[in-house]
């Protein structure tokens, strides 16, 4: 008898509703199927009925954790379509906010991964660090999660106190390199839970279209920030960490190294940031046409397609969130693994179901 164990839609390992039916033989997983759609809000349909300014606020709410990537990607799509130049200062501010969001997202993920392997002390340490970057984001934008920073043609707010951002980021880089990374990479119990678990081969990563840290941990060096630089990324030095193993441990290491890279990027951006205007015209005139826009979110490539008929309302907005691409890879990852690893494996993708469901 192989029992089907249902995880979700409500389960202590998941922050959001989704369902994974796991077929087990003993403790080993022989099959798995994933159900999403519990959070479906038809945001793409709504977007076709609201003007561009309201749409940016609408897409801010696709996700609670990576809200900035959605407004940034949509703003960039509108700018490309309307031919708007973004002032240089705004480009740097966008980079700072985007990387701060990556820090916050990766630290949140690291904490949850620790919690799933029962390592509560490390979970608290990660969330303590995350609190620092949340404070920075609140100081910049006035809110902890939905930053409302981007508008077509610039950003809504200036960074009033770059020194405080720099200090917080340095503290995070310091704690990450001195405390978090050594524990995550050398602790015997963490290694025992993560190394060799949930392997996604390079071939599977390509076939399933994996993006972001998931792809990079499987040996695919893809990063939109490097391959098609946007905003100020072409003027900033950073590395794209890639690992070949494809297991949970590789994904832990990739994200941990990305935390350090993000700190590096923010430091450079704050130092290079020129003075000047940071926002453009209030109402962009969007001509008829269609455009694609891609940026590298914390979880991977965010893709927007916007079609316009020249009015103040788009005719179609299509969003492909990173989790939408990454989530199906959970199936090849869990096959043959033990049931105890399933929560950790699905979490190692850094899944965001509200993003996926839209």
């Amino acid at each position, binding site marked *: 008898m192989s029992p089907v164990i249902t995880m979700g839609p409500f389960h202590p390992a998941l922050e959001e509703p989704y369902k994974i039916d796991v077929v087990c033989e003993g403790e080993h997983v022989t099959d798995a199927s994933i159900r999403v759609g519990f959070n479906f809000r038809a945001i793409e349909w709504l977007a076709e009925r609201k003007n561009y300014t309201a749409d940016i606020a609408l897409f801010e709410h696709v996700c609670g954790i990576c809200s900035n990537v959605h407004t940034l990607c949509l703003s960039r799509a509108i700018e490309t379509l309307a031919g708007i130049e973004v002032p240089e200062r705004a480009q740097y501010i966008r980079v700072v906010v985007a990387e701060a969001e990556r820090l916050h997202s990766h630290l949140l993920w690291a904490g949850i991964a*620790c919690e799933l392997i029962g390592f509560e002390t490390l979970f608290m340490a990660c969330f303590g660090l995350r609190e620092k970057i949340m404070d920075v984001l609140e100081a910049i934008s006035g809110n902890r999660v939905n930053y409302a920073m981007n508008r077509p043609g610039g950003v809504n707010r200036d960074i009033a106190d770059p020194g405080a951002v720099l200090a917080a980021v340095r503290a995070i880089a310091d704690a990450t390199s001195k405390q978090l990374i050594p524990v995550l990479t050398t602790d015997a*119990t963490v290694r*025992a839970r993560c190394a060799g678990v949930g392997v996604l081969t390079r071939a599977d990563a390509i076939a399933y279209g994996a993006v972001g840290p998931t792809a990079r941990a499987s040996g695919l060096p893809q990063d939109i920030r490097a391959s098609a630089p946007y905003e100020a990324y072409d003027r900033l030095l950073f590395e794209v960490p890639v690992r070949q193993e494809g297991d949970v441990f590789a994904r832990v290491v990739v994200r941990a190294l990305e935390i350090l890279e993000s700190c590096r990027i923010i430091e450079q951006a704050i130092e290079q940031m020129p003075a000047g205007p940071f926002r453009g015209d209030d109402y962009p005139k969007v001509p008829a046409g269609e455009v694609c826009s891609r940026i590298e979110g914390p979880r991977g490539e965010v893709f927007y397609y916007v079609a316009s008929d020249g009015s103040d309302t788009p005719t179609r907005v299509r969003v492909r969130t990173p989790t939408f691409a990454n989530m199906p890879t959970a199936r090849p990852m869990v096959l043959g693994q033990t049931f105890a690893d399933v929560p950790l494996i699905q979490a190692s993708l850094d899944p965001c179901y509200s993003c996926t469901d839209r």
Partner: protein
Amino acid sequence: MTVVRGLISLLVFPGALFALPAGWFMMWLQRKINARAQGRIGPPFFQPFFDFVKLLAKEPVVRPRLQGFLMTVLPLAAVASTLGAIALLPVFPKAGGFSGDLVLLVSLIEVGPLCAVLGGFVSRSLYGGIGASREAVLTLAYNVPFLIALFALVASAGSFSLAGVALAAAWPVRVLALIALVACIPVKLHLNPFSAASAEQEIYAGSTTEYDGPRLALWELAHALEWVALTGLVASLAFPVADAAWPVRVVVFVAVSVALVVVLSFAAASTARLKLAQTARWFLLCGSGIALSALVVAFVRL
């Protein structure tokens, strides 16, 4: 061992009157240490007691009669047997005990996990069942070093009585055997890194998932008593103060037990949870290795 003395050790010390508050205190201490290690405040002093009273006051879910009966009897049996085990602890090595009480103690300690396994299965919950099977596998695994270690002590002391073991076991054997015994405690108490049987992120509360109200309160009670029984066993074997007055013995017993709680709590706070297979492998290789070395030392000495 007179009847009066037996009753006193069952009901007063180290039995119910002492063990209940002591168990709650140890649970509180573990949670408090865990919280402080994580930079949190932690629960108030009476929290485990409040939890117990709150659960007792809740109206239980109506169940089929046989299932309801079993789900009440099994935790009760766990409470009773653990209390019996505590009563046998050789806190006063010279005062009581009988030949072979070690065997009785071991079997009483084993009743608790056995009840948990059965309790998980009779609750007819998928997660309860998985928790129960994990509990069963782990019980098998840790009992290998647990029994070998005790046997090493017996071999060294040449006696199957707890008092004899406490007084006569050779120190090299004793240290090795106690290390093996201490390593077994986290499995029984569901503490990291050996807490696979109650991994909430995977299987909710494991074998007690379906338990509620007074029935869950009984499990909590059994759990609190297990704390006292297991730390007490190690404490009474580690520091047998044969010649001192009884208050000194009590103080030493309590102090060593609490010190053990502190050590176990910090160990739990600084580790992640190992998987079932990894836990079992650890006990069959490392745990048994330590216990076997104790046994070898015991026989070489003989």
